[in-house]
């Protein structure tokens, strides 16, 4: 390169660099790009965050960093384009999305179960949960049929990425146990066995296609003994194949719907809406009321428009717009479930498998309050006042550390007081994965916000009150804090390793578990010790009973309810993989009286 060209190139490089950096800065200041879509709760939380972030700790700067990052024009214009162009040729996902064959997208957490999710007893626990749901609804005079939703990867197997670790044995074991237990359910995987998975699942989405949902719904309705008009038994070929299909996983990846590159990504040509209003009318008339409890069904009006009740309570992390629980569960249960209704309960299997979910998602109204429909005997939570909030502000957040989240329990946040002078006061609660909003009528002294316990590792929750006018005076108590003062500490030896796994045995006082409702509170001193932890009971003659895989939180704490089968259990064993904890583990038996 001669000197002249070198000079020109140098000028161009310098000018280009300064334009890219300085120009972007000016543009972002003058016309910031649209940031991510936030729920009203997130917006409220951000307002509070901005108002409270201080400079000394650097919190204020991190807020600025995040705002600049989110509203960067470079990010808005370049990144989706970049993502789209590495998505298919390089099969590169990100944000928890894995790219499979033929460009199919899968949520990584649903095809890579966390450690401990494959324990042999896991399917049994899940089956017990579904059995409990079935029994509870029967006891309420309702007639349920369960629809365990298989994971996308267990159906769309030919599109899975290399090395996928699905272990479909879980679903198979679950359905086998349900069949053995006589629990009415729809075996979706079996139902779809002869159908091309490209017709029943969406390539760039986590949900079933309309056709897949129709097949499951039709089967469920048949199993409830309802009539199905033979004319409704459609094949996908008879329907519109040009209808747009949802592609939420592209948005999850970071390619927003409004970006020009979104539509350049090839997507499915799947059957469009299959079920008309007339179809639905044909399904449900002259039959008992039909209640659908679930997620995918409820997300698609073509299936659920005409059902008499809609409950979305079993998959709280999946709701649309972040506030679905308040919209569906709260509203749908306001008047209670109708006597003698047919009920279809959709339960995502991945939740049963991955999150230690035990089915505490159903609630009912009682004395104007939402109350969990207890499926197993839960611990009675000891309420504990945690903080008196400033009465003069209409929006605030309450940071709180959740203790006592049991993995199968319900967190109840109780707001008590008189929201005098406030109009349309709404109490909203947000955790890592769950958001709930309830209206607070002026004539009520308290409201309760029940949620499924956040996933292990969720360490914060926010309670926000939104109202048209300030002036309420509210106390907040978190009804999940266990009274650990009265718990019985279990002294024990230090954890010992035995090649790959460590264990720590605690002697149980005689009769400690007999006929009592007991929970075990565990505090592991180090994060690293929390790989695949388990609690087992040991008895004479080598008897052994797995209490559970422990859903440890990031801070190394866990609370497990001990459901001990009859027997003389003498030892409680806590074990885990990886390096043993160096410092002592705290274990306490929490004696919780039955309700």
């Amino acid at each position, binding site marked *: *390169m001669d000197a002249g*060209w070198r000079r020109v*190139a*140098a*000028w161009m*490089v*310098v000018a*280009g*660099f*300064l334009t*890219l*950096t*300085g120009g*972007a*800065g000016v543009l*972002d200041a003058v016309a910031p790009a649209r940031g991510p879509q936030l729920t009203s709760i997130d917006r409220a939380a951000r307002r509070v965050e901005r108002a409270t972030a201080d*400079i*000394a*700790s*650097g919190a204020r*700067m991190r807020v*600025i*960093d995040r705002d*600049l*990052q989110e509203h*960067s024009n*470079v*990010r808005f214009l*370049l*990144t989706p*384009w*970049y*993502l789209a162009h*590495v998505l298919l*040729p*390089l*099969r*590169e996902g*990100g944000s928890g999305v*894995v790219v499979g064959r033929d460009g199919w997208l899968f949520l*990584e957490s649903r*095809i*890579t179960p966390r450690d401990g999710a494959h324990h042999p007893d896991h399917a049994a626990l899940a089956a017990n949960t579904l059995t409990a749901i079935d029994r509870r609804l029967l006891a309420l005079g309702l007639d349920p049929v369960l629809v365990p939703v298989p994971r996308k990867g267990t159906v769309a197997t030919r599109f899975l*990425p*290399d*090395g*996928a*670790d699905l272990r479909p044995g879980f679903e198979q074991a679950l359905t086998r146990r349900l069949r053995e237990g006589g629990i009415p359910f729809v075996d979706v995987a079996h139902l779809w066995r002869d159908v091309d998975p490209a017709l029943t699942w969406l390539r760039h989405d986590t949900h079933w296609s309309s056709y897949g949902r129709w097949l499951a719904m039709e089967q469920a309705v048949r199993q409830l003994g309802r009539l199905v008009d033979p004319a409704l038994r459609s094949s996908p070929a008879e329907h519109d194949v040009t209808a747009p299909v949802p592609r939420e996983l592209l948005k999850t990846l*970071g390619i927003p719907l409004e970006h020009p590159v979104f539509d350049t990504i090839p997507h499915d040509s799947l059957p469009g809406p299959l079920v008309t209003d007339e179809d639905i009318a044909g399904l449900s008339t002259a039959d008992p009321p039909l209640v659908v409890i679930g997620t995918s069904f409820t997300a698609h009006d073509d299936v659920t428009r005409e059902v008499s009740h809609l409950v979305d309570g079993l998959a709280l992390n999946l709701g649309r717009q972040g506030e679905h629980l308040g919209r569906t569960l709260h509203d749908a249960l306001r008047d209670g479930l109708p006597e003698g209704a047919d009920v279809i309960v959709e339960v995502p299997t991945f939740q049963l498998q991955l999150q230690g979910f035990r089915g505490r998602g159903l609630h009912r109204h009682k004395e104007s309050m939402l109350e969990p429909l207890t499926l197993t005997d839960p611990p009675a939570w000891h309420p504990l006042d945690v903080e008196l909030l400033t009465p003069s502000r209409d929006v605030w957040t309450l940071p709180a550390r959740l203790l006592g989240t049991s993995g199968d329990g319900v967190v109840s946040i109780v707001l008590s007081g008189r929201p005098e002078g406030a109009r349309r006061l709404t109490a909203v609660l947000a955790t890592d994965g769950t958001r709930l909003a309830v209206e607070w009528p002026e004539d009520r002294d308290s409201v309760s916000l029940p949620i499924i316990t956040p996933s292990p590792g969720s360490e914060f929750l926010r309670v926000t009150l939104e109202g048209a006018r300030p002036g309420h005076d509210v106390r907040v108590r978190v009804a999940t804090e266990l009274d650990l003062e009265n718990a019985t500490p279990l002294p024990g030896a*230090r954890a010992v390793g035995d090649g*790959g796994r460590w264990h720590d045995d605690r002697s149980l006082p005689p009769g400690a578990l007999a006929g009592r409702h007991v929970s075990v509170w565990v505090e592991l001193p180090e994060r*690293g010790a929390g*790989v695949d932890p388990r609690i087992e009971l040991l008895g004479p003659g080598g008897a052994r009973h797995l209490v559970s895989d422990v859903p440890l939180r990031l801070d190394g704490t866990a609370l497990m309810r001990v459901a001990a089968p009859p027997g003389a259990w003498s030892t409680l064993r806590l074990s885990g*993989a*990886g*390096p043993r904890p*160096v*410092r*002592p583990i705290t274990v306490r038996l929490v004696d919780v009286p039955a309700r």
Partner: protein
Amino acid sequence: MLFASATFLYAFLPAFLGAYYLTPRRFRSLTLALGSYVFYGWWRPDFLLLMLVSTVVDFTAGSRIGSERARGGRGKPWLLLSLATNLGLLGYFKYANFGVETLNELLVSMDVEPVAWTSVVLPVGISFYTFQTLSYTVDVYRGTTPPVGRFIDFMCYVAMFPQLVAGPIVRYNTVADQLAERTHTRGKFFQGVLAFQAGLAKKILIADVLGTLADEVFARPAVTTPDAWLGALAYTFQIYFDFSGYSDMAIGLGLMMGFRLPVNFDGPYRSRSITEFWRRWHISLSTFLRDYLYLPLGGNRRGPLRTYANLAVVMLLGGLWHGAAWTFVAWGAYQGAWLVAERLIGKRAPYAFLPSALQVVLTFVVAVAGWVLFRAETLVGAGNLLAAMAGDVMPSAAPIPYLFRPVHLVAFGVGALVVWNAPTTQRLLRAPPLAWVVFLQLATPLALAHMHHEQNVPFLYFQF
């Protein structure tokens, strides 16, 4: 503030460069010092005080030592004050947690109640700026450099944001003249932009991409042999591209402001022995340890045994400088053992009889094994991974799903090209080929797009 962040790239850098070039020449060091305080304070403003303490103490110590020397004295108490302050800060903030944790493990093993302790937060870059200020007072004490005249110049030297938090460790006498007088030319600025772009691309497009792979492997208690090798190789590339990328950016930013900062890497993975590796890797640290530790210990002047011991001590402390953990000590010991072994047979590798290319490959493998010690969380973890690499796999090991993807292949491929085939950054800057200039202009938007996708991954060397 991170170089690879929207705040730095779109707000701080253009605003700072504007302010810097609008400032009259004689006040530019002041602008740089103030800008550097904003840069550092962005993370934790309260830790600015620490840096200020270190600056004031060493400036005072240097001036006093200079005065004492002018009067025929040596000013040893002032040197000791500087040593105590800097090593005290480093010791408390960097090693107190490690010391207490080690003590507690010992106590627990003896069934004694552990000491209650609240962890200390490590101020970013403290290892670098304390070493820099130390080198200044030691040099003044030795008489190899005169004390700095203006406080602003010294403040600028200590806080200079391009190299403040992750090096290179710039010794005072390297930049003394530039602090007082430096030239600002279009050519320098152009070189600076190129170096910065090269660093940005190295960091974001190679180090961050391969870092995800390494993280997956090192997080597992048991892995298969192929996964273990993948993880170790990914980390070997990650640490080089992360650190040399940061150094390139630092050098580039320095050039934009008229400074020529010292080179920190010179194609280390092309070395044919570990001795040569340490002449090419983190050069500013190697030379610092040589001049302020190895030589004062006697270097190679006191017989072979003492030379070996000095080498071992220097590398052990060098390992500990990187982090307060036994894995870093083990890494230092491993490097020291190799250096001693090579010195025993005449400063060459035991495989020096092999063809040159094979020597490079074997030295690379030795480095890879060393990085496993460096990266692992525990010595047991490092042992397990090394065993897996050697084929001794734990029974619970299973292949990690979706570990190796095409994007990693691309990153490895481009990385290997840069490591073994491309000219080093400093050679590129001397006479940049048009092809590389064009390549960097294409890589920069890609890096920015990826940066926004990955949400700012911090540099590895921030933690040291």
